[in-house]
C-alpha cells in the first residue's frame, strides 16, 4: 500500500514499547489471570457443589474455568494497550505531537491499539496451551480450526468496535478533564452485561435477547463463546453483523466528537 510503511513502523515501535518493561509485562499478565481464576474457582466450586451437578447451562466446572481464563486475556486483546491514552494525551498536551505529524491521528492510534492486540494474542496462545497441557480439554469445549478462526475474527471485529467506543469516550477529555470514570463504567458494563463476570447463559432468556442488541456482550462473551465453539454459525454471523453495526455507529460518533473537540484543544503544558 502506497505510503503506509509508517503504519508498520508505528506497529513495531508500539510493540517495542509494550515489551520494554518485561517485569511489568509478565506481572500484569499473571496477576490479571490469577485474580480472575481464583475468584471464579471458589465461587463456582461452591455453586456446583451446592447444586450437586456436573453441568450448568451447558458449562462443566472445567469448561467454566476455561471461560474465566479467557476473560482477562480476550479483554486485554480487545482493549489493546492504549486504553486511557488518548484522554491522557488531550489532558496533558501530548496530543500536540500527533497534530504536527503529517499522518492520520486515528490510523496512528489504531495501529498502536493493534500492536497491543498482537502481543496479547501471543499471551493468549501461551496461556491456553499451558491450561490444556495441565488440565486437558474440558468436555464441553470444542477446539477446532473453525472455532479458532471464528474466535479470532470475532476478537478482531470486537477490537475495532471497542477502539471506536473507547476513543469516542476518551475524546470527551476535550471538554472534561477526567474521563476515566466513563471508561470504568464501560468496563463495569462489560463485566456485568457483557458476560465477563457471569456467562450470559445464566441470565434469563429475554434479557439475553436484549443484551444481544447492545455492544457489551461483543466485548467479552461473544468472542469467548466463539473460541469455545458455543455459538452456531448463524449466531456467529449475526454477532459479527451487530459488532460491525456498532463499530459503524461509533466511528461516526468518534469523528463527530473529534470535529468539535479539536476546536477546544489548548495544548496545555507547552
Amino acid at each position: 500500500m502506497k505510503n503506509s510503511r509508517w503504519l508498520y513502523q508505528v506497529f513495531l515501535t508500539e510493540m517495542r514499547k509494550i515489551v520494554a518493561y518485561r517485569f511489568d509485562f509478565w506481572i500484569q499478565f499473571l496477576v490479571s489471570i490469577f485474580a480472575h481464576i481464583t475468584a471464579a474457582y471458589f465461587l463456582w466450586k461452591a455453586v456446583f457443589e451446592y447444586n450437586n451437578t456436573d453441568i450448568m447451562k451447558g458449562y462443566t466446572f472445567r469448561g467454566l474455568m476455561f471461560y474465566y481464563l479467557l476473560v482477562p486475556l480476550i479483554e486485554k486483546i480487545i482493549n489493546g494497550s492504549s486504553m486511557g491514552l488518548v484522554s491522557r494525551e488531550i489532558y496533558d498536551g501530548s496530543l500536540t505531537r500527533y497534530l504536527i505529524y503529517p499522518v492520520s491521528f486515528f490510523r496512528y492510534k489504531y495501529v498502536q491499539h493493534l500492536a497491543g492486540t498482537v502481543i496479547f494474542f501471543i499471551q493468549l496462545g501461551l496461556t491456553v496451551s499451558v491450561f490444556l497441557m495441565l488440565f486437558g480439554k474440558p468436555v464441553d469445549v470444542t477446539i477446532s480450526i473453525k472455532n479458532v478462526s471464528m474466535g479470532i475474527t470475532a476478537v478482531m471485529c470486537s477490537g475495532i468496535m471497542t477502539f471506536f467506543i473507547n476513543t469516542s469516550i476518551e475524546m470527551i477529555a476535550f471538554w472534561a478533564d477526567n474521563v476515566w470514570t466513563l471508561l470504568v463504567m464501560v468496563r463495569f458494563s462489560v463485566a456485568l452485561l457483557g458476560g465477563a463476570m457471569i456467562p450470559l447463559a445464566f441470565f434469563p432468556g429475554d434479557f439475553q435477547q436484549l443484551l444481544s442488541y447492545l455492544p457489551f456482550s461483543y466485548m467479552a462473551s461473544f468472542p469467548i463463546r466463539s473460541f469455545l465453539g458455543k455459538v452456531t454459525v448463524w449466531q456467529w454471523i449475526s454477532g459479527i453483523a451487530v459488532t460491525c453495526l456498532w463499530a459503524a455507529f461509533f466511528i461516526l460518533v468518534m469523528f463527530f466528537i473529534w470535529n468539535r473537540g479539536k476546536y477546544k484543544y489548548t495544548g496545555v503544558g507547552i
Partner: protein
Amino acid sequence: MIEVQNINKVFRVHKKEPGLAGSIKSLFARQWIEKKALVDVSLSIGEGEIVGLAGANGAGKTTLVKILAGIIHPTSGTAKVLGYNPWERQNEFRRQIALIMGQKAQLWWDLPAEDCFLLLKEIYQIPERQYNENLRFLAETLGVKDQMNIQIRRLSLGERMKMELIAALLHNPRVVFLDEPTIGLDLTAQRSIRQFLLNYRQKRRPAMIVTSHYMEDIEQLCKRIIILRHGSVIYDGSLNGVSKDFTSHKIISVHLKDNNIPVRFRMPEKLGAVINADRGSIDVKVHRESISEAASYILKNLAVSDLTVKEEDISNIIEAIIRED
C-alpha cells in the same frame, strides 16, 4: 512565508474559589472567565528569516506559535504559513514545518532515540539517503552520536533537547518553531544549542520563530524581534531598533588615566547620572540629545584615557519593556 492578519485568541477558563468549599461549590455552579491571549496580532515573516518572540509569561508567545503550527484554532483572524491555513493541518503543510518545545518532550521516553528517528523517517517519508545524511550531520554537529541507542528517559536534559532537535529537523523543515529551546539547560548546553541553531540556519536557511525567556537566545539568534504584551504586539522590528524606540538614553563609558575617581565629581542632573563607578571606570547614563554636552563636561572635569558611547544593554531594555517598567 508567514502572513498573520488580525489574529485574536480568547480562552474560556473556569474559575474556582480556594478551599474545599470552593471545590464543592464548583460541582454545582461554575464561574467562567474569558482570557484574551492574543489581541489583533498581525505580522509577516519572510523566507529564511529568524524572528524572536519576546514577552512575559502569559503574553501570548506560545499561543501564537501554537496557532502558526496548527495546533490550536484562533478565535478570529487569518494566517497563512507556506501558503496554507495552519489549523486545517494539511499533510503537505505539516511535512514542511517543525515544532520544538523545550517544556514538552515529543520523543517516546521508553525508546532509544534511534528507534524514534526511524519512526519519524517513515512518518515524514524521508528518503533513505536524505535520512542517513541528515542524521549523521545533526548527530555529529550536536555531539550525540554515541547516545543514539540509549533510552530517551535515561539521557540528560541537554542530551534530550539535542535529540528533540534532531527529531524535528530530520525532514528539512522550511519553517521551524522553537518554543523555549534552552529552558532549564545549563550554560554550556544553552551555548551549544544556540551555536547549533546558528550553523543549521546558515546551512539550510529555514524561517525560524524563537520564543525564549533567555534574552541571550534572542540576542544571539535573531536580528528581528517581536515583543508581545498582554497578547498585543508592542514592537516588531530590528533588535537594534529596540533601543531607539524604547529608551531615550545612551551610556558613556569612561576609563580614567589613574584608578582614582575624584570624590567631588558629580554629573549635572540635566545631562545624566553616574550609574556605575569602579576602579577608574565610570558609566554615565545620558539623554540622547545631551551626548556631546555630557562628553565635553566629562572630558573637562576628569583625566580621561578612553571614552566610548554605547547603547544601553539590549537585554536590559527588553526585560524592562516586558516588565512594563
